[in-house]
Each structure stands twice: as C-alpha cells, then as structure tokens.
C-alpha cells in the first residue's frame, strides 16, 4: 500500500475504526464471560457446603 497516495487517510481511518471497534467489542465480551464464570463459581462455592450438610449421615 502506498502510504502517501491520495485518500490514504480514509483507508487509515477505516482500518483504525474497525480495529478499535472490534477490539473493544472483544474486550467487553471477554470481560463479561470472565465475570459470569467467576460469579457462577462463587455461587456454587457458597451453595456447595449447604448441599453437603443436608446429605451427611448426621443430618439425616
């Protein structure tokens, strides 16, 4: 690509915008995925002892 050609600024702007928007979208998505997984792990850890105590022989 000729960086000094006419209108090459529009090409830079288009590619720059695409990288920024796609990068931000992927970052948001990954952040949500991690937070959701962490929240589920926290809930499972919180509920696990309760489940265990209800199934022990002493409780029965």
């Amino acid at each position, binding site marked *: 690509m000729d960086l000094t050609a006419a*209108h090459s600024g*529009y*090409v830079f702007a288009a590619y720059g915008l695409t990288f920024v*928007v796609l990068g931000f979208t992927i970052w948001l998505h990954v952040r949500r995925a991690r937070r959701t997984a962490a929240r589920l792990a926290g809930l499972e850890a919180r509920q696990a002892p309760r489940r265990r105590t209800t199934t022990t022989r002493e409780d029965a």
Partner: protein
Amino acid sequence: MRIEKYANPARFLSLQKSVQPWLTGSAVVLIVVGLYLGLVVAPPDYQQGETVRIMFIHVPAAWTAMMTYTFMAACSIVAIVMRHPLADMAAKAAAPFGAVFAFLALATGSLWGKPMWGTWWVWDARLTSTFVLFLLYLGYIAVWQAIEEPSRAAAIARIVAIVGFINVPIIKFSVDWWHSLHQGESVFRMGGPTIYPTILWPLLVMGLGYTVMFAALEFSALRTEVLARRIRQMEIAEAQGS
C-alpha cells in the same frame, strides 16, 4: 451426528470447550492472511486507487451483519417450532455482534463514500436498508434489556427477529430493484464475480475470516448466556430456599 444433541446446554458446553480454540485460531489466521493480501499483495484499483482497500473490511462487515441477522431469524424459528432450549440464547448472544458488524459496514462505507462519491451519506436504498438493519439489531437488544422475565422477552424478541428478517433480502436486492448510487452485485451474482482475482481473493479470505470470527464470538457468548441462565436459576432457588 445429530445437531439436536447439542441443544442440551451441558453437551453444548463440552462441545464449545473443544471447538473454541480451533475457531479462534482459524479466525486470527484468516484475518491476518486477508489483511496481508489486502494491504500488501492487492494492487491499487485503476479508478479507486488505494481507497479500494476499504472494501476488504467494509464488504465482509456487511456480509456478516446480514448473515448474523439470518442466523438470529433461523434460531427464532427453531425456538418456536422445535423448542430448543439454546435457540433463544443463541439469537440473543449473536445480536450485539451483528449490531457491531452493521455499524462497521455503515461507518467504513461512509469513509469510502466521501472520497469516491463526494459525500459521507445518501439516503440510497442499499444504505438506508443497512441502516434499518442496524436499528433492528438495537431494537432486538432493547427488547431483551427492557423485559426482565426471560420467557416473555424471548417471545417478543423472536417476533422482532422473524419480522425484521424481511429486511435482509431487501438489502441484498436493493441495488437491483432501485436505481442506486451503491455499486451493483459484483461477487455473488449469476454469471460469476466481476472483480479481478487480485481484489477478489483478499475479499473472500476476509469474508471467511469475519464469518469464522463471528462463529468464535458466538460460541463463546453462548457459553456465557448458558452460565448466566444457570446463575439466575441458582439465585431463584436460593431465594426460594431462604
């Protein structure tokens, strides 16, 4: 292998775990190769000059935006007819990515239009119908955001996806049905593409790269949706138990 097998969320999660690295890796490789072909190998167009390189990101974004909406409409039909538990979640997970692709198609098209047409925007049939597609995505996302009860939100969102799908063939054939400033079909047309191979190949590789990127994002987002629904069920169970 029956695809319905993977309508079970647990089976889907195990499939997603094994497929995800391949999808992500393939998307990265295809996009890197496509960028190399588009920015280094492809020559400038004899009329458009360097501006033709915007096509390698504009056209795949537009294709993927239309494909994503078609996928959402298909998922909505499957949700109504076959009651697959993952179908609504798949459509919901796809919508934000579709909106991003539609936005990028509009924005990069505008950046191409200014040097080539002398204007950022015209209310042309192709441009307007693509803008309507972007609004449909926003409307679909708004339905899920506005209605708290998932089953009610899903019922309305399915209608938005299926009714809105009528816009997809309008976008595709708008350049044939109306006099348009936008160029006519030059890739998927009867009689074969009219684009020279040095321009066509980067376009096709980038198109495939965007499609696989969507698939990678969709698989990952669907996993998040499944986990989010599990959280909701656990929270409801916890609230009822306390």
